[in-house]
């Protein structure tokens, strides 16, 4: 048995040994580890960086009231960002699977094409989904563009789907049966949360108020960019993205509105990305030339 928290500990330790800054989850709701500033902003500009962290990721539309054994409104990703990616990055990744107790010789591992795009973030990447015995356990991406900017150097991103890996490790049919630690199951820790948020996202979220908040955060993001406060502006954009996802789950976003909102936030995120690179340039790109 490998508990959920043990899995997190081993993976984190593995990547800490590879020189990653071990970060903590971001404290704003996000849909994926990619949206953590440690990825979205750090991949911009020329400075090398390595980070690893767990990111609880909210996907309101995937909620199933805690009743589906495979679907969750919130799941956990372990995100690794390697900038620039080392030549043996795939080998390192396979090593990390061995480190969490997967006997690769007794399994079927494949890298299948899966390119990644986050239209709202102006982000484009090329890569694979890593399949273990037919289960997608990791998203592996080489970033090419973020915030509409071409990246140089590029970054390698490894996103582990922790629940899925844990299900493979424990031969579990139901995510809620996973052992969180020696005593409590995943369901005991999280099932109620799945129920409440599913109910909120699908039935109760106040559509008008959410639209209002979305507009407020947009305005606040724009104002913060003018003030040169890039990080504050970025947080506002993340909130817009989450509100957009809530409204989508609520069935309140028509196709036209969808295109409009994505377009507006995309412009803001593009401005944030450019302003971030400028702010690092003003500092003289302090992480350049660091020997590590």
């Amino acid at each position, binding site marked *: 048995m490998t508990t959920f928290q043990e899995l997190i500990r081993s993976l984190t330790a593995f990547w800490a040994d590879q020189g990653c800054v071990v970060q903590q989850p971001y404290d704003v709701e996000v849909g994926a580890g990619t949206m953590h500033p440690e990825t979205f902003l750090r991949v911009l500009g020329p400075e090398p960086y390595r980070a690893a962290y767990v990111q609880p990721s909210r996907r309101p539309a995937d909620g199933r009231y805690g009743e589906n054994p495979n679907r969750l409104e919130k799941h956990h990703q372990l995100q690794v960002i390697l900038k620039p990616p080392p030549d043996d990055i*795939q080998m390192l990744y396979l090593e990390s699977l061995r480190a969490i107790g997967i006997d*690769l010789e007794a399994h*079927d591992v494949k890298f299948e094409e899966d390119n990644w795009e986050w239209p709202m973030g102006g982000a484009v990447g*090329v890569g694979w989904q890593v399949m273990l015995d*037919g289960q997608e356990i990791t998203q592996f991406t080489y970033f090419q563009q973020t915030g509409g900017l071409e990246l140089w150097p590029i970054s390698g991103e490894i996103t582990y789907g922790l629940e899925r890996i844990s*299900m493979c490790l424990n031969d579990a049919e139901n995510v809620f049966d996973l052992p969180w630690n020696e005593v409590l199951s995943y369901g005991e820790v999280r099932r109620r949360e799945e129920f409440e948020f599913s109910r909120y996202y699908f039935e109760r979220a106040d559509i008008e108020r959410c639209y209002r908040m979305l507009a407020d955060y947009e305005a606040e993001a724009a104002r913060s960019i003018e003030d040169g406060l890039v990080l504050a502006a970025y947080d506002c954009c993340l909130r817009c993205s989450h509100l957009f996802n809530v409204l989508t789950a609520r069935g309140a976003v*028509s196709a036209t509105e969808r295109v409009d909102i994505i377009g507006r936030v995309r412009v803001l995120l593009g401005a944030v990305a450019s302003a971030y690179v400028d702010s690092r340039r003003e500092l003289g790109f302090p992480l350049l030339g660091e020997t590590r």
Partner: protein
Amino acid sequence: MSREFLLEVGCEEIPARAMGPALDELERRFRALLEEGKLSFDGVETYGTARRLVVRATNLAQAQDTVTTRTLGPPASIAFTDGRPSKALEGFARKSGLGVDQLEVFETERGPYVGFESETGGRPAREILADAVPALIGSLTFPKSMYWNEPGREFARPIRWVVALLGGGVVEMELFGVPAGAATAGHRVLGRPAIPVENFDDYVRKLETNGVIVSQHDRRRKIRRELEAACASLGGRLCPDEGLLEEVVYLNELPSVVAGRFDERFLRLPREVSVTVMREHQKYFAVEGSDGVLLPCFLGVMNTGADPKGWIRKGHERVLEARLRDALFFWDADVRRTLAERVDDLESLTFHRKLGNYREKVRRMGRLAGRVNELTGAGVDADALTAAVAWSKSDLTTDLVGEFADLQGIAGGLYAEREGQPASVWKAIYDQYRPAGLDDRSPETASGAVLALTDRLDTLFGCFSVGLTPRGSADPLALRRDTQGVIKILLDHRLPFSMASAIEFDGRLAGEDSKTFLEFYTDRLRHVLGKRGFAYDEVEAVLATGADDPADVLSRVEAVRAVRESPEMAAIAGAFKRIKNILKQAGAAARTGAVDARDMEPEEAALAERVAALGPRVRELSAAGAYREALGEMAALRPVLESFFEAILVMHADADIRARRLSLLRELSETFLKVADVSEIVVSG
């Protein structure tokens, strides 16, 4: 001396679907490289897996053949004055970049000349390969590429090692910053990295012991064999899927088949849904019993030799079970609302920003479908057609299609069947996206054909009217496929049609847009007929007389093909070319004059008589679609026509006689063009 060249480009996993085309391109272009480099060779073969592109050239010349060229300057007689170089000679030497003392006197047929000889060629193969291979590899085309070691320099995925051996020695070159060497790498999990190799045979052998079967042909055979064996032991037979097979051939370096089962309760799902779940998400093959009913089994292809602990089978079973559970959940949930009830939801589903939403598309289609039904004479029941069109896009709002996009149409058809709709409705909805390509089948029913035609015509007319036209290879909306779909359906069902009438009825395409579309459409028709094995000139001969009705064009092309080899036809093609030229040169002068048969030469009178009879006869035969007979009638003109041209001068000095003869030829030409412009036929021999 000649030797073997081995190139292996070692990569991170290239998308499996891109590998087949990439290896074809590599082979073609590597041959061209050797030919342009004037290096002789016996053969070029390409091999590969997702992680390697391999070229082997056998019996490659060590160097280009050398060629001596002689350049001559002034004749020896004027090259020297008083034994000293003349101005002419000095000028020639300067222009050639040589000293006078480097020039020689050569005896030629025209006497002695001063000049020099130079050798070209002789470049070693090693040098040519080192120069040209990096550029070739760097410009291979992939559907999607990326950069990693230098901004702007793209390849499908990062290159990690390169083997380049000529006669066993490394050819020094660099691909995307990676220097070529003599070491390959084995299977990711089962093989060693950095394996030194000496030549192709050694390479293949060593990779085999390191978990890689290099030849795609060998892997395909292994998979096929194991699929057959697994089916036999399951007591069923394989549901063949060549596209999927091609993908797993490249995805796996050491493919083996793993058989698994799923719970029988999922057999409640329509077969199409289960098969799609297996294929699209999991890349599994389905198995059916001898009665054609799906078995609760699947066959996956794993990238390893065996599954000793059964973990792999178990893992695949668990994943498929979860997928099927989702599908069953969606299937049951979707039927709570009928297709009719979903029509309004289409309003929030954008078809294209410039062309509105799906609700509007369905409305437009409703109007156009009736006209298509008339034009094709398909005779589909009006109520059934109205229903099929109205509900054709409703499945886009179902969860099942949301999850499995490939089921669009099929899902709608299945839901309609479940709602108790007649076959003329549900089968039409089911088949509406067919044919998916020229190799796919057309809709089975007449109503399906009309719906599929209407859907595509609406898309095409709309797109071309707002400037969404394919440019070069960029065709994001797949309008080529749609146009070919229209043509294929009309040909497969042999339905009459008039593209011009359809465009006019739809009303959105006019002027330049209409012209652009018709050219595009004609070009696709040309392509489809070419794919059906018709020669270029046969197709051109018919298209010169119009392309409005594809099925009619097909009948004509078939007729032209059937008669083209007859000696009469060859003669007629020549004669018709002559007639066209005469009429073209005569231009506007070729007006119909008063026809006075009294002073006609006998050859002219004979032709006039035949032409007068031929016109109505060809019209009659054409109307009945008997183009072959019509062409036969024309071919029978040969002796009369030949005598005419032997005896008669068309461009007679007398304006009236000239006009009369031109008018006769014009009438004949018009009759010919009712079937085909036979002057386009290339006459052999």
